[in-house]
């Protein structure tokens, strides 16, 4: 009997030891399991941002494709709302998508299931995105559209619908927690609703991390600077005075007309004329009321430059090509051309233009005309008030400055585009001497040498190969032109993540 008792004690001790070890092991396992689970979900949360940014990139690419010069059509695979059926239907074409956006409607895109980024390793198991794009009415500036993109990135999370409190001090307020995981319902839909659900809806999901990014995309136009000279050598810009004003600032500039009176370095009014010189120049002699940028130059700040001098700027200036709508020109432009309406502009091609006048369409107060000239432009140009005239030309441009009669007194209404000449050839944009007068126009002609004689004030923005003005010329940049002109590209203007 005593021996049996001894054996029983041994067994008891062994069982107790095993139980103790099991408790210790279970405790360790539980702790490690929680930590591992938390780490995996944190990784998923981080990767959801990658998915969201991929969504914004896709939306951004479609904005660029909508320009029509990349060979890829925009809005393929996107959907629009069919208001009669209250359902989302495929966008039928790029024009269809553009039209929906111009009407203030939204397009949506869901990454197809077979394009999801799947993984069976550690971290997230599935990555995908949903993108929405629209353009509120206030996003149409100078005739060019800005876009708003909202992309939500999703990351499937491994493990069960459980996670540690992601806060070292036990904070439980939703807004104070960094990693908001959708363990059972989509929290964005619950807060805001979406294209298919009202706010407050509980849409059940398998564990996922969802992060949302909103980006604003702005158009790039040639006229964000007063003067851009692309010649890589020599002294491409020789002018006496460059300053700025804003035709949209009717407080400092009544009627939107240029005046040098409000110009003040202290207030920043009239001193925002930026000049970019693509050559490594060592000096800049103009009185510049703004900043100077050079590509490898050695210009130092002097009293003649009110802004900053930056010598390490390299810009890629897009060339100018003939418009995609051009047709074979059969003869010179008539003396009078009637503009089309804003909805249905005029498009016409000519072999040359001399002393042309573009008038409003009958019964309209606004009009738009787009002309393509394969040869020279001479004599003069008159633009009626209310008409926006765009001219693409391949030959030389020559007339007296006073013969550019833009009756809108606003450079945005007369846009001149000098098509890049063939390699080895040169072109000139020559404003000959004449009586003093303000000339309002914009010029995007990176292959042209712009020569200006006489005593004119030239108001607008100018992208040229070289620019030379004699001692009496003055150059006034209209700050309101920053978003005007043909769109050559798109850029990111703002990036915001929705932290809620």
């Amino acid at each position, binding site marked *: 009997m005593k021996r049996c008792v001894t054996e029983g004690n041994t067994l008891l001790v062994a069982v107790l030891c095993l139980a103790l070890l099991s408790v210790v092991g279970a405790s360790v396992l539980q702790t490690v399991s929680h930590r591992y689970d938390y780490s995996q979900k944190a990784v998923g949360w981080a990767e959801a941002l990658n998915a969201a940014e991929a969504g914004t990139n896709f939306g951004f690419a479609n904005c660029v494709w909508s320009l029509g010069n990349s060979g890829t059509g925009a809005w393929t695979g996107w959907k629009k709302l069919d208001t009669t059926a209250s359902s989302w239907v495929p966008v039928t074409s790029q024009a269809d998508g553009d039209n929906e956006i111009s009407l203030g409607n939204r397009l949506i895109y869901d990454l197809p299931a077979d394009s999801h980024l799947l993984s069976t390793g550690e971290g997230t198991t599935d990555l995908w995105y949903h993108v929405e794009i629209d353009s509120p009415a*206030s996003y149409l500036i100078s005739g060019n559209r800005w876009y708003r993109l909202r992309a939500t990135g999703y990351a499937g999370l491994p493990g069960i619908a459980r996670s540690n409190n992601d806060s070292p001090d036990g904070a439980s307020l939703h807004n104070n927690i960094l990693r908001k995981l959708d363990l059972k319902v989509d929290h964005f839909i619950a807060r805001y609703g979406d294209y298919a659900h009202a706010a407050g809806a509980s849409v059940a999901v398998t564990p996922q991390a969802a992060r949302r990014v909103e980006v604003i995309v702005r158009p790039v136009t040639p006229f964000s600077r007063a003067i851009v000279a692309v010649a890589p050598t020599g002294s491409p810009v020789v002018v006496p005075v460059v300053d700025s004003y804003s035709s949209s600032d009717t407080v400092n500039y009544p009627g939107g007309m240029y005046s040098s009176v409000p110009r003040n370095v202290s207030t920043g009014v009239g001193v925002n004329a930026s000049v970019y010189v693509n050559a490594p120049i060592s000096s800049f002699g103009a009185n510049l009321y703004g900043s100077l940028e050079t590509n490898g130059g050695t210009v130092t700040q002097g009293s003649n430059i009110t802004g900053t001098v930056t010598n390490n700027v390299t810009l890629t200036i897009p060339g100018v090509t003939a418009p995609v709508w051009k047709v074979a020109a059969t003869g010179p432009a008539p003396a009078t051309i009637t503009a089309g309406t804003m909805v249905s502009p005029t498009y016409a091609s000519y072999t040359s233009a001399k002393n042309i006048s573009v008038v409003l369409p009958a019964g309209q107060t606004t009009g738009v005309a787009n002309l393509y000239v394969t040869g020279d432009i001479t004599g003069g140009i008159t633009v009626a008030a209310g008409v926006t005239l765009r001219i693409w030309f391949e030959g030389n441009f020559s007339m007296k400055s006073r013969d550019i009669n833009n009756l809108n007194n606003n450079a945005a209404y007369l846009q001149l585009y000098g098509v890049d000449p063939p390699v080895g050839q040169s072109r000139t944009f020559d404003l000959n001497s004449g009586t003093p007068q303000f000339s309002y126009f914009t010029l995007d002609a990176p292959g042209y040498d712009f020569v200006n004689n006489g005593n004119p004030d030239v108001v607008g923005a100018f992208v040229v190969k070289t620019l030379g003005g004699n001692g009496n010329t003055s150059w006034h940049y209209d700050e309101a032109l*920053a978003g005007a002109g043909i769109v050559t590209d798109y850029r990111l203007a703002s990036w915001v993540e929705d932290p809620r």
Partner: protein
Amino acid sequence: MNRLPRNQVPSRDAFTLVEIMISLTVGGILLAGIILSFTTFQQVFAGVDDYYRATSDQMRVLDFIGQDMRRAISGAVSNGTRTLTLTLPDYIDESQNPPVPRTAAVAAAGTVTYGTKGMQPTAVYTISGTAPNQAITRVYTPTTGSSTTIRLTMASANYQFSCLNPGNPGGTANFSFGGVGQPTSVMVQISFQPKFNRFNSANARTATTVSSTILLRNHL
């Protein structure tokens, strides 16, 4: 007293004193070993777990700063690199019920403004407490309403936090970023003092340093 028959004498098959002393000694050594092992195991486990939690806190702080800095309009570093102030877009309209994202105002010059220009929320990251109980905190101040302070790390790991100019990583002077001609990114470094540091090595903290350079998406 009558003697009991030999077969009725109580058993004397017991341990001798020597045997008991030896067994007690051996048992004591074993027990001490077990206790010591268990205690050490606990210490190691607690040390490893604290280390994990500290590194986890580091990543949380970097993720928090990353989220704020990516969307920031501008910012500044002060207090000997130990305070990071970020100016954020006023993206959420808290006056609505429920709060909703605002529509940004855009301008021809390329600017985008959420809410009222000049009135933007801020987020300030800094060290709170004193050694050896320093933690990293975030103070969020909205355009309306009171500030919210949250502690991003446990205090016991004695965190250190510094924000450096990538163009001058050795400098401790105050600097601003995000504006014209200013840095477009900030290098954030976070370290802590590991608890499981029996030899009190001076390099223990250095080995915990995590660094991340974060780019402002909205820099000019």
